[in-house]
């Protein structure tokens, strides 16, 4: 989810900040500002998490949330201290932690089992796979993947639907609980996105996604979900439970709109939104289960994040053409094959390439696995969620 730009050491030195002494050294302490959009985002996600815990029957325990959030927070404090020799309030990683805990579920965890440690290692795994790419897979001093998004998508694919899943697409029958949850999501979205100027991106995604999912519903696509034992979800309910899913809205408002991983240019952001929505819809098209659809949504962003440098470049060219500014004269293009070889010689870029390809491909393969339908229909030994 939304993360902060890297610290500017000059600025840190220029302003007077509180300090602590560690091993005889004065270490600056950077606390969050009230205007920080990450705090607003955190407040929104925490509010929905509490709603989920106490009103919407989310199957997550307090230790599962606490371990994930603390692990992420402590990791960022240590990493930032090692890199910049300052103690920074880990707003981004706390945000990553709560996002993971909010979405990730371990099969068999019951609602109300507040102190369950069930599958705690899986929460640790998601937290680790969210943070490691943030510090390792970087390009132009920015991390490439949205931390919680890649952690969630990768673990859901790696461990599989027998053991893990993400929070349901549809939380409750339409009633005051859902209206309250939607109000918090939309209110929080407006509060955060207005500040980070990401409303056009979110609306572009939604317009594209809504149209494609409506098309699928019209052509009779259906899916199985544990919360719909009457049979497959189809028709207008198919559209509503995917396009208006609180999970989808949170993904749109608080994941793809992460300024750190989205393209920089306005045009690039619109391309990125359309590409992510189209990728998500195409991956959803081949899914017949809720698990597959949720992974499809997450994986679409993994794929487009890996392509952000290309999208940014395309966005800049469109911007230049639109504004009538001359495009910079470029040196003769390096042949694609040579560029690919150069990329593959760099383990970091090679890993990004593998992740960007494997996430959507493995997600598409979920659509061929008919056994996931048995899980969604509750016809296995896995506890029905």
């Amino acid at each position, binding site marked *: 989810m939304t993360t902060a730009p890297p610290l500017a050491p000059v600025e840190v030195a220029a302003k007077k900040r509180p300090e602590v002494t560690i091993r005889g050294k004065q270490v600056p302490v950077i606390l969050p500002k009230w205007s920080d959009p990450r705090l607003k985002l955190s407040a929104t996600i925490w509010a929905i998490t509490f709603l989920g815990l106490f009103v919407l029957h989310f199957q997550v325990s307090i230790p599962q949330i606490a371990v994930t959030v603390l692990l992420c927070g402590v990791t960022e404090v240590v990493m930032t201290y090692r890199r910049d020799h300052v103690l920074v309030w880990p707003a981004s990683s706390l945000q990553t932690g709560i996002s993971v805990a909010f979405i990730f579920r371990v099969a068999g965890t019951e609602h109300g089992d507040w102190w369950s440690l069930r599958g705690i290692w899986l929460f640790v795994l998601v937290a680790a796979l969210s943070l490691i790419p943030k510090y390792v897979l970087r390009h132009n001093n920015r991390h490439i993947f949205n931390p919680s998004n890649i952690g969630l998508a990768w673990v859901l694919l790696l461990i599989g639907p027998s053991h893990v899943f993400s929070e349901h697409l549809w939380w409750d029958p339409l009633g005051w609980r859902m209206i309250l949850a939607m109000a918090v999501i939309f209110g929080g979205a407006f509060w955060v996105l207005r500040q980070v100027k990401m409303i056009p991106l979110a609306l572009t995604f939604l317009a594209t996604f809504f149209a494609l999912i409506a098309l699928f519903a019209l052509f009779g696509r259906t899916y199985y979900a544990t919360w719909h034992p009457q049979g497959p979800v189809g028709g207008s309910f198919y559209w509503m439970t995917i396009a208006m899913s609180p999970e989808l809205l949170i993904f749109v408002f608080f994941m793809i709109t992460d300024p750190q991983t989205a393209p920089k240019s306005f045009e690039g952001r619109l391309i990125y939104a359309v590409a992510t929505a189209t990728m998500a819809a195409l991956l959803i098209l081949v899914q017949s289960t809720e698990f597959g659809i949720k992974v499809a949504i997450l994986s679409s962003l993994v794929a487009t994040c890996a392509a952000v440098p290309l999208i940014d470049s395309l966005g800049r060219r469109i911007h230049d053409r639109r504004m009538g500014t001359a495009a910079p004269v470029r040196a003769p293009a390096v042949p694609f094959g040579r560029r690919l070889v150069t990329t593959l010689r760099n383990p970091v870029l090679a890993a990004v390439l*593998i992740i960007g390809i494997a996430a959507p491909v493995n997600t598409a393969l979920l659509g061929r696995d008919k056994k996931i339908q048995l899980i969604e229909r509750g016809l296995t030994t896995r506890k029905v969620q």
Partner: protein
Amino acid sequence: MSRVDAPVLPEPHAPEAPAAAPGRRALAWLGFVVVLASAVVGSNVFAVRDHLFGTVTPAAAPPAAGRAVGGAPASPDTPTSAVPAAATSLRSSPWWQDVTTLQGSGATSPAPFTIAANALQWRVQWTCSTGHLTVRVPKQAKAVVDGSCPQGAEGYSVQKGPQSLQVTAEGPWKLTIAQQVDVPLVEPPSAAMTAAGTKVAGTGSLYNIDKVGTGKVTLYRQADGGYSVRLEDFFVSPNVDLELRLSSLEAPHSSDEFAAAPNDLVTVMDVTAGSVNYALPAGLDPTKYKSIVVWCVPIKSAYAAATLGGPR
């Protein structure tokens, strides 16, 4: 601005890897290998993910065609014309399937039999009349049966495949062999259900209460005046100690609601997936009831139910 004025930029391309210490570079490549390996596991190609982390959807296996191996009838009610059913990943609660019955007298090696490769275990239920009975299987140190006659009991083994027993006895003996499997049982409708004069007395579809239940339920009034019930393409969350009961409620929706209303036992359920037939106990009049419920005795939980509609 003319093109000449524009700055000349290099074509964007993948940056060269910065020169790094050999150890760090090796670590980076190790990380790449981990990413690649996890991508392969995530694809579940060759079921690699299932093997690594386990799965709740085992490999598809053919269901059992009868309560006895080979689909042979366990009771006169069951016809032998079993139709082969498609392989399935559905699994039942483990149940005992008859394999064979062996009889003899004194020490001997009876006819061999085969235990299915997917059997969980097998048992020998034995009786004998005099002396001591010992039954051994090759490659198993401990005797399957080692007891004094004339008592009877059970012995167990987990060996799969062809089995040649070595029986040591001083008198007549009888061994009933059964294997425990968890594949669904797909029985054809019983002879009584397809006989002329048999009528459908009610049908319904299983729905969830505390657990999962799917499939069709058909109640038959047989030509001989008795009743039987068939569960078809059904699945109920696996457990032991399940019972099939008739309820006076039309559509019970909770365990408490079911338990508070009059109900009666149809049968103890050993199989929880497939298509099975049960004869109702003599004297049980199903016309007094409106639904059928899968009931778990130890925890007093109604797993699933079906409203019996249609002619009664």
